[in-house]
């Protein structure tokens, strides 16, 4: 048990050079923001966008840590749960009540998906798992289009539409709201994992299932809870995307791609890393779009994935990951 808790601590796991690099990047951003208004504005917009990447990336990481699955359906699950929230608002449930109800529903949905679809194939190859999630992707897409149609839908604005100005930089309430909600959900999750018995049990179940079972942890339940929590995070990402992308079945597809890049950048095993990775990619893409003329919009995705490839090749465990001993 002792060894277990030491090994599974949700620490950042970043090495010194990485921490120094991140600190340098933060200082660079700070100086840039003070020097140039447009730099500051692009950074703020990048952070708001990055927060959404971060939420979804964190969901991916949670699932990867729990079950070693790359969930290609994560974005579609998020999209589907956003539609559920939309349906609730249609039934005259107020926005924030609908928000929390949706989180509960998402949790159940995530757990059910694990129990029904993933558990039967969990101990098979990576390929089998990938394909099941791809099948789920197609299935959810079909179901949502069937139920709600593929045209744009709109929900009430959660944060109002005010814009604040400070020193030549405009902040919209919406961007700030998105940033706060995303970060708050990440912190809550961290507290759950770090300071509760349930969190400890979940980490144990993910990392040493056999040992965890021996000490009386119901491993399946823990993994299902992990999937449920990931679905909750996805729902947050979906609901926070809605104000700017609106509701349509494709709304999370591109975001999922950026979330993949973010998760790998931070290290697939590292929750903190995925959050930093998401924010970093959001800001990086905006700044590069502003200052590098060649990097036109069609190169945004390729650039994000070039980052992913470089990270994979130079430091496959990501910025925050630890080198794993390869099991033979």
């Amino acid at each position: 048990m002792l060894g277990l808790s030491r090994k599974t601590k949700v620490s950042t796991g970043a090495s010194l050079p990485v921490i120094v690099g991140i600190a340098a990047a933060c200082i660079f951003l700070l100086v840039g923001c003070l020097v140039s208004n447009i730099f500051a504005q692009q950074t703020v917009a990048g952070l708001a966008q990055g927060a959404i990447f971060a939420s979804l990336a964190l969901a991916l990481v949670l699932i990867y840590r729990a079950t070693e699955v790359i969930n290609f359906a994560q974005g579609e699950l998020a999209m589907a749960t956003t539609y559920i929230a939309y349906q609730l608002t249609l039934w005259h449930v107020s926005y924030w009540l609908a928000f929390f109800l949706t989180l509960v529903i998402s949790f159940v949905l995530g757990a059910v998906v694990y129990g029904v679809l993933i558990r039967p194939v969990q101990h098979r190859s990576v390929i089998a798992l990938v394909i099941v999630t791809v099948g789920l992707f197609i299935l959810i897409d079909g179901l949502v289009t069937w139920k709600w149609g593929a045209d744009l839908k709109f929900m009430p604005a959660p944060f109002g539409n005010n814009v604040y100005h400070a020193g030549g930089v405009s902040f919209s309430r919406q961007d700030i709201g998105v940033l706060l909600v995303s970060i708050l959900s990440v912190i809550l999750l961290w507290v759950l994992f770090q300071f509760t018995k349930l969190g400890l049990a979940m980490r144990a179940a993910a990392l040493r299932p056999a040992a965890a079972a021996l000490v009386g942890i119901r491993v399946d339940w823990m993994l299902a809870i992990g999937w449920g929590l990931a679905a909750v995070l996805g729902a947050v990402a979906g609901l926070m995307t809605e104000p700017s992308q609106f509701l349509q079945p494709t709304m999370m597809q591109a975001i999922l791609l950026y979330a993949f890049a973010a998760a790998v950048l931070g290290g697939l095993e590292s929750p903190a890393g995925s959050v930093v990775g998401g924010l970093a990619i959001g800001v990086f893409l905006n700044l590069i779009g502003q200052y590098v003329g060649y990097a036109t919009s069609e190169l945004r995705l390729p650039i994000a994935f070039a980052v992913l490839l470089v990270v994979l090749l130079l430091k496959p465990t990501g910025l925050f990951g630890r080198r794993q001993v390869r099991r033979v």
Partner: protein
Amino acid sequence: MSRGLVTRLGVIAVAAGIVIVLGFRLSDYHLGLGARIAIYFIAILGLNILTGYTGQISIGHGAFMAIGGYTTALMSYYHHTDLLLTLPLALAVCFVCGLAVGIPALRLSGVYLALATFALAVSIPQLPLKWSKWTGGSNGIRTFTSPGNNWLYRVCWICAGIAFVAAWLLLRGRTGRAFRSIRDSELAAASSGVSLPIYKTLAFGVSAAFAGVAGSLFVLVTNGYAQPNEFGVLLSLQLLIGAAVAGLGSLYGTIVGALFIGLLPQISTSVPLIGSGHGQDVVFGLIVILVMILLPNGVAGLLGAIDSRFKSAIKSDPTTS
């Protein structure tokens, strides 16, 4: 000649006979459909060499198809190259691209390799948009001539036949043994003298070359029209689905995989389950999931379980081995 070999040759002869007879009997529209199935067959065969036999997952084969397809379209558009000549060209270009991807891929395995190849699937189709001056961008680009469905059916199935024989010859020899030993255990393969870098890179190259030819033909059945949307992420995912349905590590199952992804969307559109056209996705998704849950080793595995002589029910697990 062993009995197994005789049965197999018999099966192949029957299959070839069916393909030839259908070539004379099918309507023009169904010939086009048949040509598509041949194309999927070639691409899945290539993917199977890499993923099924060498244990290297790829979710990026749509990218190689895009490269092959654009090779054909560009050569035909700018140089009026004979369409048949563009096929070996696409093969060569994609072989080189495959090697180029294979070398860095040596450092990756399992989910990391899956994500890296997925990155290719997403990024490569964006590039024609960036260089739209000579690729036509979103308006696409068309080959100088575009053949009819009859020609396509024949050429696609001849290519499929050649690809099958080539794959069979490659896999039954030394190279095939090396591939399989890498899949089963990299450590064991290396200690018995198999060069991991050479064979893994080679598998990538060969596999990409197959996909390249498939991509060329894919552009030809799309009326010779190459456009980025054709090579979206979905194509890469479909190929992987096809390979898994076929049963990874089975050459014979490949045809079932090709039929599956080639025909299922056609069939499921006419399922009156939920109507309004969206039944297609629901049915397709459900079947994919069910097949994966119920048939761990694909159709080939199912046959293998029924017939114990069919010894292709191989567990392929590139990560936990």
